[in-house]
């Protein structure tokens, strides 16, 4: 029990707002931003996410990994005097003076339910589950919106052509923030389309990795049962030693 609590505390500590306890006397540069229409003075070197926390917001949605990987903090903003509506991840984008912004905590785009093993490996799988892909007019608004700088329109077009491999390559770094979907004039949920395509490619298109087959055979033979038992029975100290001495891939 104590171990669990301690772990949760450590997680909580590691994701703690970085702005807690900022001594405003030390801040030399300030900007004014507008969050949902209300102005706030915030330190100039903050991200949108930390600036919102500095301003007093407690983020219970639109906030996840804080490192640009989870896609939870989709944000739309305009710079002062600009007509362009910009999109960004709040944890990866620094505030600018005059910026007007709001976070998008959730994108209502239903994901289809399917069994990739049962589906025909052909372009028709897209029109079956996401028929709106055929409404794409190649306007490229999705690509402009993508905070990962993916060529979103190109992977939607790859879907229309039935090119699963190209779709997989182009969409691989998608973090499913949903900004493409809320900007699309054809109302396509691009990121769901891409996930279907990648799953289909993984199941039917890409070669089966030899080492995976070997490892599954080892598991089924029970070659690791003993090692697993040892781990389950280990004390906290033993676990920590094992963790510190673990094999790591080079950075």
């Amino acid at each position: 029990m104590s171990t669990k609590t301690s772990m949760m505390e450590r997680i909580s500590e590691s994701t703690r707002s970085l702005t807690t306890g900022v001594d405003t006397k030390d801040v030399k540069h300030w900007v004014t931003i507008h969050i949902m229409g209300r102005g706030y003075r915030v330190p100039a070197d903050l991200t949108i996410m930390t600036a919102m926390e500095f301003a007093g917001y407690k983020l219970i949605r639109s906030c996840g990994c804080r490192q640009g990987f989870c896609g939870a903090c989709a944000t739309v903003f305009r710079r002062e005097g600009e007509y362009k509506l910009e999109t960004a991840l709040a944890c990866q984008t620094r505030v600018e003076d005059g910026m007007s912004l709001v976070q998008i905590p959730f994108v209502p785009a239903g994901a289809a339910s399917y069994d990739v093993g049962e589906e025909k490996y052909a372009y028709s799988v897209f029109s079956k589950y996401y028929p709106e892909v055929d409404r794409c007019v190649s306007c490229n608004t999705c690509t402009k919106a993508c905070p990962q700088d993916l060529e979103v329109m190109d992977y939607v077009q790859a879907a229309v052509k039935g090119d699963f491999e190209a779709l997989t390559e182009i969409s691989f770094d998608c973090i499913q923030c949903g900004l493409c979907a809320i900007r699309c004039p054809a109302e396509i949920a691009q990121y769901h389309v891409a996930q279907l395509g990648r799953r289909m490619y993984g199941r039917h298109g890409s070669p089966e990795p030899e080492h995976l087959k070997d490892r599954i055979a080892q598991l089924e033979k029970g070659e690791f049962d003993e090692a697993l038992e040892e781990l389950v029975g280990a004390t906290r100290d033993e676990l920590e030693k094992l963790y510190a001495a673990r094999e790591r891939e080079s950075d």
Partner: protein
Amino acid sequence: MTQDNDRAPRRERRGAGSEGMRLPYYPGCTLKTTAKNLEDSALAVAGVLGIELVELPRWNCCGVVTSLTDDDLMRHLGPLRNLIRVQEMNADGLVDDEMRLVALCSMCFNTLKQTNKRLAERPDDLEKLNAIMYLEEDYEGRVEVVHFLEILKEVDPEKIRASVKRPLEGLKVAPYYGCTLLRPKGIGIDDPESPTVQDDFIRMLGAEVVDNPKRTLCCGSYQTVANKDAVADLAYDILTHAREAGADVVTTYCPLCAFNLDNRQREVAERHPDFDSIPVLYATQLMALAFGLGEEACRFDLNHVNPTDVLNAARLVKEGT
């Protein structure tokens, strides 16, 4: 894209079929899916004639159907983006000073050409679209959209005849034209009332062209989605007239016409018990056959109504081909 003010007036085009002829090629989605038999046969035939069709990098939807409304500019973004890719191909050296874009699908050809024409006539529209597409280089208006048949017309007929290894003697062919190769004025590549642009090439293969009075009757187009019966009735009309004219096969260059005339024959037979089924081929499949190319080029396996029996009867394919 560099400015080409200093460039000499467009140099004399090398005739199609000369060594190293490379042309930007726009496939379109059906050529990668349901109309793979058009792409495979056409690319193989082009290869025999010394024409290399270089696929446009990152091509997107042709636009499918050109928007005719004045205020629906967004539908021209897709076609226009493909034209910009041709500029990029030239800048990247994928083709050598070749601004012609070849389409095989007659629907894609029609849509791309209509957008190109509209933007040439209305520079204010082009300016607006260039501004919206700020991630792309501006379109300079120098691309010319052509259909594969227009490239074939540039080839020395003797070269085509010399490429025929297996003359299609005794085969009667009814070319079907539909609309997208012929209309509207300024876009079509042949007489909209009595087109012949497919016919000459079919004769060069040794086959006989039979006249079908319904060669330009509408196939029903996208009504095939919501109104199958109407399409089936039109297909019945077109195909029965071809049969009565003595045709063994019907040819087309349009994947949508091919779908309506070929795949819809199931519905035609349901509604018209007297219907006599007839193979519908892409004209390039016949060329591939006559050029002596194998099944990987002819792709008869992808036709809904299998043409091999008819071609067997005319002793044109070996058993099992």
